[in-house]
């Protein structure tokens, strides 16, 4: 082959391959955080420590079930030719009771943050500013409790800032991937600890109360789930472009899983059968992972507990791979790719962490040995089948990363503080977030390095 022939062939191949790649029609909308976006639904784990307060005891004491919900939808249908590596979401732990109001409480202060001129401008034409309220300053002393993103650029953080007259709940928004932040209106309550947005307009604050906005956070309304009454705190919530689901603390035979369309608050019990085995587990901490048409539910406290799996629209009994060895934490990077980390015997700031992978949605598992011993297992995230990040806290707050499907592990973040983890998850194969104590951490390189985010206002904070 002559040089010219080689180059001719090269040019042909490059042109042919390039011509197969086109912009998705909603590329800009996804970039700007409108409509169908790369969904990010990190997840919370709430431990049911408060469930056993003496006053609440009764033979038929409500089972307060803390639930972890993971849901990661596949790419949007317009998104052709992406068989692998869907952006994954994932899970994180948090300590604290289901009945608590989230956060560490707040002292002193100046009332809830209300951004100046909350103009509900749902601008149809996507400007760089996007829809939602005009941003105000970032309140001094803001501490984060929950984070959610609807695109690579647009996200919110729920937290508290010192104020004179509680509630001191605050919400910050970014439109440039966390480079700059602005204060926006928060729900007027201190009884919310988690935040999830499904689109740039539709979001929910929850745990234990449930509040919603459908104008990008300019206005918030209290939501009461039908029949659940005041006694059923919302302990977990997932929101995606296709719908929102909330989990209430598990009381007797009441439904625990609720679903609503995104654009409104029409909540109804979700199809939910065959989980009696879990309901019989006193003081359980259940974890629910949902993804597309698949779903997994496990009891996160009792060793060797039963589980359930969502198949063809209904929940059926399912046995997580931990068996009698420990309690599972799940993360899913696609409808079929599941990572389960089994927390083994814990003690003295250490816990064995057995790791297993499934490529068939949890029917069969491959054992991949153990993650490092240090710290109690608090969260798992998996942006792609070969990458897993585990959050653990004990003497220190640690993130362990494996980039070869669990064969080897490295410590990718370590802070001697030992604060608990929440909302560990990825918005894309390279971008991820986590909350350590009241600090927001971010990775831009697929989990290799994690750095704290400072909530600085900026010209583009808006």
């Amino acid at each position, binding site marked *: 082959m002559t040089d010219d022939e080689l180059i001719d062939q090269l040019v042909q191949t490059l042109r042919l391959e390039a011509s197969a790649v086109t912009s998705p029609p909603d590329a800009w909308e996804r970039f700007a955080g409108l409509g169908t976006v790369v969904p990010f639904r990190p997840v919370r784990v709430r431990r049911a420590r408060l469930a056993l307060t003496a006053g609440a005891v009764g033979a038929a004491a409500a089972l307060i079930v803390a639930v972890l919900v993971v849901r990661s939808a596949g790419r949007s249908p317009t998104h052709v030719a992406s068989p692998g*590596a869907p952006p994954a979401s994932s899970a994180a732990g948090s300590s604290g009771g289901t009945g608590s109001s989230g956060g560490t409480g707040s002292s002193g202060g100046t009332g809830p943050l209300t951004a100046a001129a909350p103009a509900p401008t749902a601008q149809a034409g996507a400007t760089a500013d996007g829809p939602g309220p005009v941003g105000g300053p970032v309140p001094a002393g803001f501490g984060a409790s929950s984070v959610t993103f609807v695109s690579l650029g647009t996200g919110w953080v729920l937290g508290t800032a010192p104020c004179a007259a509680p509630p001191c709940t605050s919400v910050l928004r970014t439109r440039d991937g966390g480079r700059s932040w602005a204060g926006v209106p928060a729900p007027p309550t201190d009884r919310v600890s988690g935040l999830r947005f499904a689109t740039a307009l539709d979001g929910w604050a929850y745990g234990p109360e449930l509040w919603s906005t459908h104008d990008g956070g300019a206005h918030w309304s209290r939501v009461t789930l039908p029949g659940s009454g005041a006694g059923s705190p919302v302990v977990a919530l997932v929101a995606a472009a296709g719908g929102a689901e909330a989990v209430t603390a598990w009381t007797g035979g009441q439904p625990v899983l609720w679903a609503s369309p995104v654009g409104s608050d029409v909540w109804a019990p979700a199809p939910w059968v065959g989980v009696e085995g879990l309901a019989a587990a006193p003081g359980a901490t259940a974890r629910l992972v949902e993804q597309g048409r698949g779903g997994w539910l496990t009891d996160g406290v009792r060793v060797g507990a039963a589980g359930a799996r969502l198949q063809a629209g209904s929940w059926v009994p399912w046995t997580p791979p931990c068996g009698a060895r420990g309690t599972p934490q799940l993360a899913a990077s696609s409808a079929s790719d599941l990572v389960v980390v089994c927390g083994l015997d814990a003690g003295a700031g250490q816990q064995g962490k057995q790791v297993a992978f499934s490529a068939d949605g949890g029917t069969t598992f491959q054992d991949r040995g153990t993650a490092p011993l240090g710290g109690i297992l608090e969260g798992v995230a998996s942006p792609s089948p070969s990458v897993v990040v585990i959050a653990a806290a004990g003497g220190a707050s640690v993130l362990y990363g494996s*980039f070869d499907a669990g064969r080897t592990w490295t410590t990718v973040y370590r802070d001697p503080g030992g604060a608990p983890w929440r909302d560990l998850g990825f918005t*894309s194969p390279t971008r991820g977030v986590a909350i350590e104590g009241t600090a927001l951490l971010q990775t831009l390189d697929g989990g290799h390095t994690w750095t704290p985010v400072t909530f600085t206002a900026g010209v583009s904070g808006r």
Partner: protein
Amino acid sequence: MNGMGLVDPSPALGARPESFEDFYREQHESMLRLAYLLTHSRPVAEDLVQDSFLRIQPRWEELDAPTAYLRRTVANACYSYHRRRRREDALPVEPPGVDQPEHDEMWDALDRLDPRRRAVLVLRYYLDLSEADIAETLGCRRGTVKSLSHRALADLRRILDR
């Protein structure tokens, strides 16, 4: 109607898009193609391109040549991606796909090149950039572009002859 369909979609040479959104819409596909040729992965390319736009957004109005700057940002992002991937034990990013189209042996050979050598080939033979522009995009000297290009072609030939 108002003749909106008649607007010339290609801005005059040197014209600057009026808004970042226009800039994005105008450049997204070509950047996506570039990133795909440099990474051989559609999802990764989408991610890196979105990230590059995010980086450039805060200051794009101040840039003299936003397109060249964006191209450099995308090329850099792809190069960083390859460095990270090498550390990750060279696991395939995408599982052997159901929908994976057939690729020719030239495509497979490109995938085995050193990332910088591949980048030079893509910039020269796909984008038709000058040596000076390639040097600027990759942040190296023109002499380096020459030698990278020479070695890249030799590598290709060796792989294909095997």
